[in-house]
């Protein structure tokens, strides 16, 4: 019976290895996401206190004072320059953990498709492959925005804008495999918003003490580009005393700072497309990734497109966090078995 075959068959995984979050969607129905942090106890005391050799995600952040904490990805790829080998180890452990959370059965084959930034270098792609090989039987990489489009079955005349933490990947789909000219990667993404917001808070909130993580949390709670956005009132310590600041305008300014860069990218991809299909392409812009959850961003980009290109329609996908992983899973499942076998 088919259900018996399904249970003993391979487990297909779609993995979105992100600078901020790593998500997996598995063919057994499991979907998990973890914050892309990996921590190792600093010493024997920390190790005894924590009772674990490696901590991941929120747990790692919560115990960061006892840990050597790594965020192994930057701009969507494994950091290989600063603390290179440690980051590679952390990335390998992160991939191992996300695969473990997909709950493969003992002895079950695992085939994974991992989304990588559209314009990741050869070296970066190989680093991701090497990190994944330890945990899976066979692995393939594909461009992140492509996997989003594939997951939605929108392969013709669609422009995907995948806004992550490290990078924003833009990719136009025209029924074939996107080439280099079809893809743009920029750094106008979540980390850019954090940096601008940190700068604005330092300038305008006298004496406020904060960390990058605190600013990231504030952004995730209040992010909006709406003219009439709810007030963003936050408490930050000033000389140890929690003090309330109204940072509504700063949040809005920081979030809007990525719009021109994204619109530039869209304009470039539309302008260099077949003129007969340009109208259709700019009418089918899909927003994906965690950054697309900024309130009002779809309308803001749409407005900018109408000003610059005369028209444009932007739609946010239903599941921004899992869009990439879902698409990668669909790809993994559709991939013929012989291809998986050959890449073992």
């Amino acid at each position: 019976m088919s259900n018996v075959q399904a249970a003993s068959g391979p487990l297909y995984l779609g993995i979105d290895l992100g600078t901020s979050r790593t998500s997996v969607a598995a063919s057994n129905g499991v979907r998990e996401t973890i914050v892309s942090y990996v921590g190792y106890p600093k010493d024997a005391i920390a190790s005894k206190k924590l009772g674990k050799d490696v901590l991941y995600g929120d747990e790692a952040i919560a115990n960061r004072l006892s840990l050597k904490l790594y965020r192994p990805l930057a701009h969507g790829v494994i950091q290989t320059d600063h603390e290179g080998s440690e980051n590679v180890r952390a990335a390998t452990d992160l991939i191992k953990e996300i695969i473990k959370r997909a709950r493969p059965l003992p002895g079950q084959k695992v085939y994974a498709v991992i989304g990588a930034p559209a314009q990741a270098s050869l070296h970066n792609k190989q680093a991701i492959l090497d990190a994944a090989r330890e945990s899976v039987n066979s692995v393939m990489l594909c461009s992140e925005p492509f996997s989003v489009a594939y997951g939605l079955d929108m392969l013709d005349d669609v422009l995907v804008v995948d806004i992550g933490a490290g990078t924003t990947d833009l990719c136009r789909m025209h029924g074939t495999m996107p080439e280099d000219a079809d893809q743009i990667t920029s750094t106008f993404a979540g980390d850019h918003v954090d940096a601008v917001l940190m700068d604005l808070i330092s300038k305008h909130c006298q004496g406020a003490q904060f960390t990058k993580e605190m600013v990231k949390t504030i952004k995730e709670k209040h992010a909006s580009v709406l003219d009439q956005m709810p007030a963003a009132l936050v408490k930050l310590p000033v000389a140890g005393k929690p003090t309330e600041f109204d940072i509504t305008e700063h949040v809005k300014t920081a979030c809007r700072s990525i719009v021109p860069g994204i619109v530039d990218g869209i304009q470039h991809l539309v302008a260099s497309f077949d003129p007969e299909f340009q109208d259709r392409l700019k009418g089918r812009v899909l927003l994906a990734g965690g950054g697309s959850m900024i309130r009002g961003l779809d309308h803001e980009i749409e407005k900018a497109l109408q000003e610059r290109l005369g028209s444009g329609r932007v739609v946010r996908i239903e599941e921004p966090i899992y869009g990439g992983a879902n698409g990668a899973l669909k790809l993994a499942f559709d991939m013929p078995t012989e291809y998986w076998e050959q890449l073992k």
Partner: protein
Amino acid sequence: MGTLDLARFEDADGGLFGPAEIERFMRAEHERARRYRFPIVCCVVAVDRLDQLQDLYGVEARAEIMKTAVRAMRGAMRDSDLLARLSGDQVLIFYAHTGPHTGALLAERVRTAVKKQRFDLDGRTIKVAASVGVVSVEGGSSESFDALVALAHDGLRMAQKAGGDRHVEIGSGTTQESLEGTPAPLGAGGVDADQVDKLERRLARLMSLLDDTEAALRRAHAPVAPVAATSEAREMSEQKRELMRNIFEANRELRQHRDGEDESELTT
């Protein structure tokens, strides 16, 4: 009363009748279907990944999700349909005078109704999905009530194994065939089979029209799913085959490049 354990039925969430009565109604309706030869459909529904949600948000959240999900299911049913909660937070739904086509549509309606619910848990809005095992039998079938429930459970397990958020139809005694898309003929062997068939199809068309917009949206935005392990699911267009080949080639080149590097390092 057969082999179905009465204790398996729990409180039917504020229903007028107790668990034992509901089971009795279902059995009686099933007997009537056999005697008067009308088609019936039996569904077992479960909210996907409920245990994980409980781990994340606690037992109370689980109870709240089930309560809301059952209310949504009731809203998606006809007044004449019967619903009972089983242990393990599964729900049994019994549709009398219902053929396989309508049964599948009703199961989809129940699944969609659950999916539309939103829950505020720990300050986060989450949504859930449901899996449904559907078994339909023709009028006059000799299948026992307990066997029907067991088959519906099989369907539910298949739906869950295929990733959830779907229904799997099983025609009684023809599990495999139904999975491959050949449901049992409508009203075959029953009284007024042609009329039942016509009414079924008319109802199906009307319901399809109503759900058309929603289905289009679902196709466009569906969390792309863990796909069912059927030959149908493996079918793909030439365009996709070409894409698969290209991705494979790109990955093979990547690997060959890496292997080349390794070899040159060894040589050095």
